[in-house]
């Protein structure tokens, strides 16, 4: 048995020690056979987001592609959620499940085993952004209040002022070389409330007037998002700059599809908390073998019964009802308000069961678009031997489909939560969490760096120093020539 303590924060050693003692007691009592015991991994995690997709104690089994069980099994404890008095019982129950052939069939499964990128959680995520108004009406608060600081780092005035100053300097340099385009395109993908765009434009206009450079009238600022309600709201926020602003509904995974006519034309592209909200896969390496994380969503028997009772649905109809809500919207359950309550209840109760599906070799890994197997091999070379990490598929896809929009002197700025090197995966659990009704996930910055290098850019990641304690970083590109 190997124990991984996946959290290094000061002051958390005691809970880890107590949890470990419980685990060891439970293992001793479990009577697991020596083969299983030798392949058992115990992970003590601290999940960044208090609301997440895991029960306090979970088990992950390893399987071949055809579902045949392998000896490797992982017992994972979220120290943040696990109640000290319950750990021992939870671990015992989990260890018993390792020995059992059948899963607990009283749980209500909402989808079937699939790689994380295809999990139903991404359908929930999409619904959240498409029906944001309904959700906020039901919760009585704006989605930004769910952020750890209660507001988005995107709108930090000092950060925006610095970004504007940097952009103005770029325009000045282009002008000096006689290369300033007649139209200066800037773009924000994932516009939130529109607060950042408004701040940016206010500040840019003021700076331009102060310095008398006449750049503001040339600015064409594009607000881009896949959610029309979000765009409408953002457009209202930037109302005083209407002549400079256009809104474009587009797929964040492929901005180039909607904006091909602006290839190599955009001087500044900004994204805040978009990549952490795009589908991802996760890979695991144990004892030199690679596994793809697959998941299936479930609701516990107690929660399923409660929801079914509350909404007058037969428990075995829960999956179909959820499917309809995700397909059509919350209105399909009684009325919109009740439907939204149903949606929130299911989301709150939703958990992911995970399994590790063995891959024959790296060639079987789902390499994100824009990268190839060689990139993945390089990442693995730089990674700890035992590692679980994100293949940030959506982020990489969006990234490589955004870079071609950049003017040769333009740059991309991404404010998000990044794992900046593969070695960082050694220092804590980086799995997904729930942020209000959306998914939030760490982004593999090393993967983006590899994608960027092949596309002709270096990426740099700087801590977001404008708010003490912020876990946000700013990734920005520079020309790799």
């Amino acid at each position: 048995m190997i124990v991984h303590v996946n959290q290094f924060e000061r002051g958390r050693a005691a809970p880890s020690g107590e949890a470990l003692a419980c685990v060891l007691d439970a293992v001793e009592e479990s009577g697991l056979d020596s083969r299983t015991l030798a392949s058992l991994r115990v992970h003590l995690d601290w999940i960044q987001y208090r609301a997440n997709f895991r029960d306090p104690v979970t088990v992950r089994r390893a399987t071949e592609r055809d579902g045949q069980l392998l000896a490797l099994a992982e017992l994972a404890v979220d120290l943040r959620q696990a109640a000290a008095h319950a750990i021992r019982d939870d671990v015992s129950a989990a260890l018993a499940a390792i020995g059992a052939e059948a899963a607990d069939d009283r749980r209500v499964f909402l989808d079937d085993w699939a790689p994380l990128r295809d999990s139903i959680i991404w359908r929930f995520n999409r619904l959240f952004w498409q029906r944001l108004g309904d959700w906020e009406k039901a919760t009585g608060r704006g989605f930004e209040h769910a952020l750890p600081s209660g507001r988005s780092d995107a709108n930090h005035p000092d950060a925006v002022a610095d970004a504007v100053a940097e952009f103005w300097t770029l325009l000045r340099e282009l002008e000096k070389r006689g290369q300033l385009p007649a139209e200066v395109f800037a773009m924000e993908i994932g516009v939130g409330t529109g607060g950042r765009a408004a701040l940016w434009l206010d500040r840019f206009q003021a700076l331009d007037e102060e310095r008398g450079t006449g750049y503001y009238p040339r600015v064409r600022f594009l607000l881009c998002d896949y959610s029309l309600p979000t765009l409408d709201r953002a457009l209202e926020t930037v109302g005083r700059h209407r002549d400079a602003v256009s809104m474009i509904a587009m797929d964040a995974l492929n901005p180039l599809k909607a904006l091909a006519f602006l290839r190599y034309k955009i001087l500044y592209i900004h994204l805040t908390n978009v990549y952490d909200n795009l589908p991802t896969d996760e890979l695991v390496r144990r004892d030199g073998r690679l596994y793809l994380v697959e998941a299936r969503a479930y609701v516990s028997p107690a929660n399923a019964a409660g929801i079914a009772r509350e909404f007058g649905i037969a428990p075995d109809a829960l999956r179909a009802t959820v499917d309809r809500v995700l397909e059509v919207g919350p209105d399909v359950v009684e009325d919109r308000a009740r439907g939204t309550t149903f949606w929130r209840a299911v989301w709150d109760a939703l958990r992911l069961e995970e399994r590790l599906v063995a891959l024959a070799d790296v060639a079987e890994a789902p390499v994100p678009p824009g990268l190839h197997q060689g990139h993945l091999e390089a990442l693995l070379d730089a990674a700890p031997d035992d590692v679980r990490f994100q293949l940030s598929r959506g982020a990489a896809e969006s990234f490589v489909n955004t870079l071609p929009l950049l003017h040769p002197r333009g740059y991309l700025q991404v404010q998000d939560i990044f794992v900046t090197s593969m070695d960082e995966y050694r220092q804590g659990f980086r799995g997904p969490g729930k942020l209000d009704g959306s998914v939030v996930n760490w982004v593999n910055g090393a993967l983006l760096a590899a994608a960027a290098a092949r596309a002709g850019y270096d990426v740099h990641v700087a801590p977001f120093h404008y708010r003490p304690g912020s876990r946000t970083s700013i990734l920005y590109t520079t020309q790799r020539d």
Partner: protein
Amino acid sequence: MKASLLTTAVVGSYSVPAWLERAKNDFLARRLTRHDLDEIHDTVVKAAIKDQEAAGVDVLTDGELRRDNMVDYFAERLPGVEVYHASKKSAYDFYESVVRSRLATASLGLVGDFRFLRRFTDRVPKVSITGPHTLVKRMRNGYYPNEEAFAMDLARVMNGELRELAKAGATELQIDEPYYSGFPEDLPWAIRALNVLVEGVGARVGLHVCYGNRYGKPSWEGTYRYLFPAVLEARVQQLTLEFARRGEDDVALFGEFAAPFTLGLGIIDVKTHEVETAEVVAERIRQAIKLVPADRVSVNPDCGLMHLPRDVAFAKLVAMVEGTAIVRRELGG
């Protein structure tokens, strides 16, 4: 119709498949021997020649597939240039290199590459050479008083290689100078260096200027107006420019300045995977020959094809040849 009307050519590089890039990187990481990499290069060059022939291109190259990029192949062969081999892990990146003493005259090995190319094709072979201005922008100068002096001496050394190529039978040479577009203020001395490079070379020499193709993207934007009139001093026979991606407005500069060159007309966009149709190619040619007589135009992609997948690169060459054939028929008819 004259046989040479609207000759089709490639600019230089051909598609570099991911597996070839990986082999080059494995060589850098010492996981592949020089001998094995050379064999791989020989094989892929033959395949590239075959692809160009099958597409119907008249003037072809070895696809520059032996080169990591447009600088390092030369930096490594120039006596007096120190190359830090540990400075890159990806073949496509540039080595850090520095010149610390006066460059010595020596063979750069291009004659061997040319002979290999000629052995495997009956078409007109062309050799592309990175020009002195571009090279001095990428190699650190630790000896010469300024960039111009460095470029002039580089041109002197490389001139010997060009003469050898001509003696070996090369009739088509091309000097690549994409950095002109990034540093237009250098143009007066850059053209002087170019003229030193081509002096006394008994072959037809073209000058290729684009807006960059590093990593398959442009490095600069602007118009070719900056080239004129300085470029008129260049002692070359052809100017090969990119128009497919940028539009053909600048073709008019040829007439405006009575340029004494033939025009290598870039009509294939090498920065998109979308394959042009033959009709689109034909139309681009028709527009251009309204401004420059057809007997002074040859047809080529905007730049090298190295960043395109092989199937796309091949399809684009086929479209180029078929589109050109349409216009040839129209002119012949």
